[in-house]
């Protein structure tokens, strides 16, 4: 079974503590631009956290010409081996959720679940993030921020989306 970080978008307040916690863990400084989880602010006031959902059938794995991406045997996280990454960006395009990005050093990076103790979940003050076992392919959760915003708008009754 895949264990992944699942988001309840209604509960996200947009505080971005998760971005800070992630960059502190991964970059040893506060740099949200390098955070593996990113909170998008979408009109008319929605906050959409995006991070890898660790798909079972992961398109990024297939897209990598270097075979640098694989599933971690212990955590089931989709892992990019940094040394083998050539920064071609094919995985970035392949991801159905926009959850992979290239750093300024041209390395593809993404959430690796912090080895099974995701720091974003730990710090989230609203319980919008939870680390759970999922009995089906988590790929159903992989959506782009705009798609999620569309659904959330409907749920909250905010038809007015701005420009």
């Amino acid at each position, binding site marked *: 079974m895949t264990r992944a970080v699942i988001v309840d978008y209604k509960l996200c307040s947009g505080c*971005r*503590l998760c971005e800070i916690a992630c960059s502190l863990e991964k970059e040893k*400084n*506060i*740099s949200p631009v390098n955070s593996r989880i990113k909170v998008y602010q979408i*009109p008319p*006031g929605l906050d959409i956290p995006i991070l890898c959902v660790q798909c079972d059938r992961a398109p990024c794995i297939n897209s990598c010409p270097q075979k640098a991406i694989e599933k971690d045997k212990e955590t089931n996280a989709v892992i990019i081996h940094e040394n083998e990454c050539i920064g071609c960006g094919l995985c970035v395009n392949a991801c159905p959720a926009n959850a992979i990005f290239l750093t300024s050093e041209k390395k593809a990076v993404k959430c690796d679940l912090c080895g099974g103790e995701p720091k974003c979940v730990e710090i989230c003050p609203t319980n919008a993030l939870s680390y759970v076992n999922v009995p089906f392919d988590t790929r159903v959760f992989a959506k782009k921020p705009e798609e999620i915003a569309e659904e959330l708008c409907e749920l909250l009754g*905010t038809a007015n989306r701005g420009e």
Partner: protein
Amino acid sequence: MKMSRGGYSGEILDIDLTDRKVKKHNTTELIDLNLFIGGKGLASYILWKELKPKINPYSPENILVFATGPLTGTLCPGTRMCIAAKSPLTGLFCDSYIGGHFGAEIKFAGYDAIIIRGKSENLVYLYVSDDDVEFCDAKHLAGLDTFKTEDRIRREKEDKSIRIACIGPAGENLVRFAHINTERYRQAGRGGLGAVMGSKNLKAVAIKGTKPVELYDAESFVRIAKETIRKVLENETVKARRRWGTARVLLYTNDIGLLPTRNFKEATFEKAEEISAETLEKKFWVKHKACHSCPVNCGKLGVVKTGKYAGTVVEGIEYETLALIGANCGIGDYEVIAYANMLCDALGLDTISTGNVIAFAMECFEKGIIKKHEADGLELKFGNTETLIQLIRKIALREGLGDFLAEGVKKISEKLGKESEKFAMHVKGLELPGYDPRASPGMSLAYVTADRGGCHTRSWPVSYEVKGKAPDGTVIDRFSVEKRAEIVIMQQNRAAACDTLVACWFVRTAVNDELYVKMLNAATGMQFGVEEFLRVGERIWNLVRMFNLRESLQKEDERLPERVFVDAIPSGMTKDQRLEKKQLAYMLSEYYMLRGWNENGVPNEEKLKELGLEVFSNRRQ
């Protein structure tokens, strides 16, 4: 050359709109951080040092400062940004604070502050992307509301993560209480700083940063910040604030007879229940909202679901808006207030001043001071929702009567005469927030002495008065004047100190000074003690005092409108209350004395020396 100290970015961006020149200063070359720390300290020092005295606030010589603090953009819960300039509403120093994510983004772009001078020939917006500053033509954004302005700039720059501070039509039209808006629903609301932007032909500042914020001792800092977050979340006041936001205050102020109603004629509102947090929670709110790195999420996103204004989306409604646009205009329908709130945010108006101005106009109409033929065909009656909505539009666009009202309560009443100044509810030109001074002697003193005019965020002694206990445990009567000067001074100094970091008002209640100082020291490598930290607050308070005296502030300006002394509260828990003139005089002279100021409110030489401000005393008038 950048310094290596943590917490700070190390550079200040200095932009002249007149000749489109951009300079970068080393922060420590511009200011002694040990004396002023950042935020309010930084902004007030720059304005003191560089602003030519007695200029017109709308002249190109006015300086607008966007200042962060050393904890902005870190893991410290609830940090904001300070925006300051000389106010077109008061003619005095004005600092207004804004949440959201803009302040943090300034840090990520590599700056501690942005100074904006001069005046652009055409309407422009600035795009700051790390080291680059672009002057972008904004002709196509002229007259656009703040929501659309933000959406357009993000689309133009093809980046959803850009943070934008902008003005609406009100700012462009130099409405004296126009705000600066970010992320739709967050404003530096008070004092007309949006009009200062407008006077500079500056529609927006857009910013994108990709740099890290460094920390002097990251390990200790993260440990203390996490402990602070935990403490904040365990605090009972914070728990209520997380659920109900500031709206929760409304039934409290109503019950204790403190809620401004119908232009401060009354202090309880018969429809308070209908606009309370409980109502909003049941019918309006759909989601919590937070500022950068804040676990409190006091913001609430609401959607109007029924009625004429169905489909309106706005974050709020904050207490001050419920009080001033709602009760103070006699409006008891939260759907109308939500729509008015959204209009103010989009058009660029401060809801506190707007609510006051409209309520004042309504009372003038009631008394025949504004005649029917002068009212653009509107029925200027308390509780008239159509009038409220029309006036908000007219003020922002300076149309008809709106052009007159766009000047703020003080100037309107001066023009109207006919004793209207007696119920013109402002101090030094800044319209009063949601606490009736008659029902709180402490609040009266807080308003009269607040550095930016009638303001509640420098000192809020209400809770001590209602509990009947001073901070040192002394029993006090709610309506007496004892201990008020002491309490107000203590709160003002702490507020100014916290405003250097820039720590949010609502988080401060749960975080003591020791924790703030620990975070400050771990982030920056500075070595502050609590006493020294609070002394920074006192230093800033005195520096701003000197600034305001230089701008010709007089002791006579430290007063309240006649209504406070003459018209007793007609009903509710504070029935028959009014303030005696001699009570205010007593509190004020005690305040001056405890501050180390002379009988005219001018800081004594010894006080300035004690605070390390003696170098400024020769520039005193």
